[in-house]
C-alpha cells in the first residue's frame, strides 16, 4: 500500500530559521510519531531532539538570522530485513559548516547555562549523523526506532 502511495509516509517542512516556528514543527513530529506507533515516552524524546537540533541550527548555523531557511523531512521507516519500524528525520540548513568531529555534548559536570542540545540529541536518538553538504550548509540525519 505504501508502495502505491510512496508520499504517504514522507512529509517535508520548510521554515524560516525563526524560533517562532518551533512549535509547529513539534506538532508535526508528534503526529508522525503517533502514525508510526511510537509510545508517548519515545515520542516526547523524539520531539525534544528535533527541537534541540533546530534550535542549534538557528543559534549556531545561522547565528540568529531568522530569514534563512531550514528544511525538515520526516519519513516513516517501515519494518524490513535491515531495519525495524521507526522515524527518520533529516534537517538541512544552508548556514555555517562545522566539522562533525567537533559536534559533541559538553561536560555535564560543568553546570552552566547552554550547550546541552547536542548531548540531548545523542542521548535520545538511535542514529545521529552530521554531514557538511557540498552546496553549503549541513545535513543532520537522525533515526528513532519504535
Amino acid at each position, binding site marked *: 500500500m505504501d508502495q502505491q502511495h510512496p508520499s504517504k509516509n514522507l512529509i517535508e517542512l520548510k521554515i524560516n530559521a525563526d*524560533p*517562532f516556528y*518551533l*512549535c509547529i514543527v*513539534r506538532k508535526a513530529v508528534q503526529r508522525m510519531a503517533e502514525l508510526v506507533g511510537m509510545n508517548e*515516552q519515545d515520542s*516526547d*524524546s523524539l*520531539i*525534544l531532539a528535533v*527541537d*534541540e537540533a533546530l*534550535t542549534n541550527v*538557528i*543559534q549556531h548555523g545561522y547565528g540568529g538570522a531568522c530569514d534563512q531557511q531550514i528544511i525538515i523531512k520526516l519519513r516513516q521507516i517501515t519494518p524490513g530485513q535491515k531495519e525495524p519500524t521507526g522515524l527518520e528525520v533529516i534537517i538541512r540548513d544552508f548556514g555555517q559548516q562545522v566539522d562533525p568531529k567537533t559536534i559533541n555534548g559538553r561536560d*555535564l559536570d560543568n*553546570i*552552566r*547555562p*547552554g550547550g*546541552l*542540545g547536542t*548531548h*540531548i540529541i545523542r*542521548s*535520545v536518538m538511535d542514529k545521529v549523523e552530521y554531514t557538511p553538504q557540498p552546496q553549503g550548509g549541513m545535513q543532520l540525519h537522525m533515526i528513532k526506532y519504535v
Partner: protein
Amino acid sequence: MTDQKNNSNNIVKNIIRRDDVVILQIVGEIDMHSSTELRGELLEISQNPPAQTIINMSEVDFMDSSGVAVLIEALQLHRRNSSQLKLVGINQRVRSIFEISRLDTIFEIYDSEDEAISA
C-alpha cells in the same frame, strides 16, 4: 501581604509576592522563542531576590534546553544572593530533560507550592 500580577497570553501566567516569597506560575511550552520572556522575569526577580522564588511548572507541557538554561542562570544568581529557587509540579515529560542533562539533583523539586515553601 500578597501582591499579584496577571499576565494574559504569555508564558508567565502569574507572579504572586507573599511576604518574602515570590511564586512564578508559568504555562505552555518553553522553547527558544518563549524562554526570553521567562528569562526577563527571572532576571528582574534575581536583581533583588526574595528568600525564596518558587516556579510553579504544573501547567508547562514542554521545555527544551533553552528553558533549562534560563533556570540554571536563575539558580546561580539566587545562590549568589543566598536565596533559594525551587521548582514545583514538574510533569514526567519536562522532568526527563532534567534527567537526561543530569540536572535533576541540582534543582530542588517539589510536588506543591505549600510543600516547597515549608521545606
